[in-house]
């Protein structure tokens, strides 16, 4: 295989402002061109920090970053000035849960997409406008010509989300980072947006890292899923393998906690306990205090992410898969 589009090697991020926190602890991710990775995991496990670090959005003064981060052959941690500006939005761009973070309320969405294109490409105003309009059509905004001159607040939630995707894709990024882009949408619009993302990904061949808590949403768009816990990747495998036969005890717990119709009237199976303090991680496996399989070794040594068949698991005692029905 040729060099992956994204390669994070032992990436660690520490916040050293008022409150210390080891938000990422030696994260390794490789993502090929055209691959879609779903990032699942507990609240506060570092999913958003991973995406923000890929965009170099953390203030340098209070953030300590170690390890390597390569995207499309560029050493991201070494980028500066104009090169960093071109990288952001040009090579990598991001969509958020809340479109309000991406759009300025005082400009029309057409103006903002046009502006983004002109910041990255040497094109004239008219050509950029035409390209922006084309983007709005591609994300299936009805009456795109009219919506071009609409302000963000004049669009419905689903349309705003599509407009944000248009903005993110306007400069043809090779990597799209999506941080819970459908969490705020109703089910019918969520499906529309997921289908749209899937279609645009196929058309453009871009790679996507898709953060979500909704396993169903990950199943709809992702090829592979990585599960995070306390700033580490604890399991990584093809979507089907994660959903059908999780091996890491945390992944097993997370899937068991997912609400379904069959749970009505009884308490849900939450993983007991709370995540560790990121300022003082336990010496061994971070999940050990909550894990029913924990041994002495687990409490002493951090389990490395090792391959196990065609998946990777960071656990000294992976859960045996239940025999699958033929």
């Amino acid at each position, binding site marked *: 295989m040729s060099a992956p589009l994204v390669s994070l090697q032992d990436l660690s991020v520490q916040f050293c402002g008022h409150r210390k926190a080891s938000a990422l602890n030696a994260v390794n991710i490789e993502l090929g061109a055209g691959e879609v990775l779903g990032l699942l995991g507990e609240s506060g*496990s570092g999913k958003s920090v991973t995406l923000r670090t890929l965009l170099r959005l953390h203030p340098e003064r209070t953030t300590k970053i170690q390890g390597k981060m390569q995207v499309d052959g560029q050493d991201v941690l070494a980028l500066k000035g104009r090169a960093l500006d071109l990288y952001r939005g040009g090579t990598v761009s991001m969509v958020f849960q809340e479109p309000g973070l991406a759009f300025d309320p005082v400009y029309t969405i057409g103006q903002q997409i046009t502006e983004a294109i002109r910041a990255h490409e040497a094109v004239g105003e008219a050509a950029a406008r035409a390209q922006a309009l084309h983007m709005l059509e591609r994300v299936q905004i*009805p009456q795109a010509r009219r919506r071009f001159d609409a302000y963000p607040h004049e669009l419905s939630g689903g349309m705003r989300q599509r407009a944000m995707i248009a903005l993110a894709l306007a400069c043809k990024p090779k990597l799209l980072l999506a941080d819970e882009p459908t969490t705020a949408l*109703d089910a019918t619009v969520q499906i529309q947006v997921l289908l749209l993302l899937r279609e645009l990904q196929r058309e453009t061949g871009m790679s996507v890292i898709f953060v979500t808590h909704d396993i169903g949403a990950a199943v709809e768009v992702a090829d592979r899923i990585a599960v995070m816990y306390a700033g580490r990747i604890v399991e990584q495998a093809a979507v089907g393998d994660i959903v059908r036969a999780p091996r890491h005890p945390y992944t097993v717990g997370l899937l068991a*906690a997912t609400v379904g119709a069959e749970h009505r009237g009884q308490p*849900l199976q939450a993983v*007991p306990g*709370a995540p560790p303090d990121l300022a003082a991680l336990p010496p061994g496996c971070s999940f050990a205090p909550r894990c029913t399989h924990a041994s002495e070794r687990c409490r002493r040594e951090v389990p490395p992410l090792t391959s196990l068949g065609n998946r990777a698991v960071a656990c000294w005692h992976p859960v045996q898969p239940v025999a699958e029905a033929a």
Partner: protein
Amino acid sequence: MNSAPLPPSPVHDRGSPAQPLLVVRDLKKHFPVRGGPLERTKKFVHAVDGVSFSVPKGKTLGIVGESGCGKSTTARLIARLMQADSGSMVFDGEGVDEFGGIRLKEFRRNLQMVFQDSFASLNPRLTIAETIAYGPRVHGMPAAEAKRQAHDLLARVGLAPAQFASRYPHELSGGQRQRVNIARALAFDPRLVILDEAVAALDKSVQAQVLNLLQELKAERQLTYLFISHDLHVVHYISDYVMVMYLGQVVETGPVERIYGQAAHPYTRALLSAVPSMDPDRRTESSPLAGDPPNPINPPSGCRFRDRCPHAHPVCEARTPALIGIAGEPAHQAACHLNDPASGHPGALPETQA
């Protein structure tokens, strides 16, 4: 890591147990919008357009509907964070802020909200323990007791006080912040809690912890919930009754098993079938509902869903369907001509068959 359950709070019932805790009648809110320079008439977004419902004591009403259909606005109107254009509310048998009714101040204390945006609702300059203790302190609780209660509540929502009590909101993840908001709402000892997308930002395991907590507290304190969510699995799990909204109006409401088992409105059916697949070999190929909701500034005449409804008939354009009970199931109501034998819709069930 559950701490000891909080002592049950005294419930001050005014009406009888059968008296719904909250009755909302014909609530309306139209937002003025900036028109073009040549437009003479002012335009309005019909955000909430004649919403009526009631919530029985100690029950959970789940509210679902498309993005922008007016769920949050309805919640804000009920909490009086915003003035309604018209409509009335009765809280436990007494008119809210009416002559001889319950005073606004007292009503507000009985009702707490947990919002969608976990960040905007926390004061960035207070530690989270201070934030949780703040409300009860203002209402006269001694500092030490307010602090102890804050720590108990933090532990209860899964945030170890030793680690988290002295943190500021920006030092928490989105999910952690939302748990603080839930703890804060509970600190007021309310009777009605409106949860607007309160568990959307949480991972499934923490979500399960919080849903379990909400269920326990509901039983312990006889709480009543209005639970707004896009997560259809969660709404199914937690609700006793479900209300479905579309473009500012209620299109269907009823007991949770009826809505999830025998939905009567075509929009409800489309919504409930839009749940993502859990099988990577059988991904969803097309959306059950195409297109976008109509413009809330100029809602269509008749049934507002008719542009997207597979059963639309000229009568749907000519006449607005009323929210009426399904034959034999008065608690289950739908606003669709298909359910009204007298509507003139050719697909409507004849009266004898119903």
